[in-house]
């Protein structure tokens, strides 16, 4: 999209869009109609840029939060596993925890 100069002189505002996979150029006029269309496109571009910036910022914020909760979850899972093993339990086929038979080993 943008202003195009004409051979006869003057400028035309054009906008390109895809229709059924083909790029179609729309001529929106010179003078006031062209100016209005150009402003509309400018506003839309800014709105998209702001939304993208907001989305980027939000992602960074949520990623940081996610990482902290993930760290907490992983650490407490390891703590639970460690405490269970030290208490004489054993995980059966990565599922149920059962008390190990016989005397406790080690320490």
């Amino acid at each position, binding site marked *: 999209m943008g202003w195009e100069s004409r051979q006869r002189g003057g400028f035309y505002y054009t906008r390109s869009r895809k229709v059924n996979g083909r790029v179609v150029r729309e001529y929106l006029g010179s003078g006031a109609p062209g100016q209005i269309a150009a402003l509309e496109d400018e506003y839309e571009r800014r709105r998209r840029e702001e*939304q993208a910036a907001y*989305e980027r910022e*939000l*992602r960074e*914020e*949520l990623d940081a*939060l*996610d990482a*902290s*909760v*993930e*760290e*907490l*979850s*992983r*650490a*407490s*899972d*390891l*703590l*639970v*596993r*460690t*405490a*269970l*093993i*030290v*208490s*004489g*339990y*054993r*995980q059966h086929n990565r599922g149920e*925890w059962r*008390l190990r038979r016989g005397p*406790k*080993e*080690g*320490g």
Partner: protein
Amino acid sequence: MGPKKADSAAMNNASTSELIEDTEKLMAVIDRAQDGDKEALPVLRKVLDEEPRIARFVDLARDVERSIVEKISGNDVFAQEAIPRNLKAMRREIAREDPSPLERLLAERITVCWLELQYFEAIYAQNLGKLTITQSDYHQRRLDKAHRRYLSSIKALAQIRKMGPAVQINIAEKQINTSR
């Protein structure tokens, strides 16, 4: 020296802080203990008994909670006051009366995971109309992950409760009681 002996030596030489920092290494020691390696147990006891970093998980839970509450409340002073109170009540309800320190930590984790899930759901709902399909997928995946984490936090506490008083770990005093 065979590979197993070399592994044992590496395991014994690893400091407890190294094991906490390096999840892979700690997992390897846990796996060895699971396989009946007698040398792994004292190493794991040391991790529970001596590592002061373990106490920081409780602090981490509180930090994350505070950070989410700030984001949710914004400038709303009533929400700033009310949400922590509700979370405290929730934690108490989950931990029940006279919880072991490990149960208390797991109750903290459940509360934080629940709060995170609520926050992600609210963010997703707020932005629903504005998101592209790719962005929507991204938020949906994040929500699914948070939901899985929440469920596994509940499972961990249920597991410890099922084992009863045999599994007691005192994080604050860095002591462990494995008596039955």
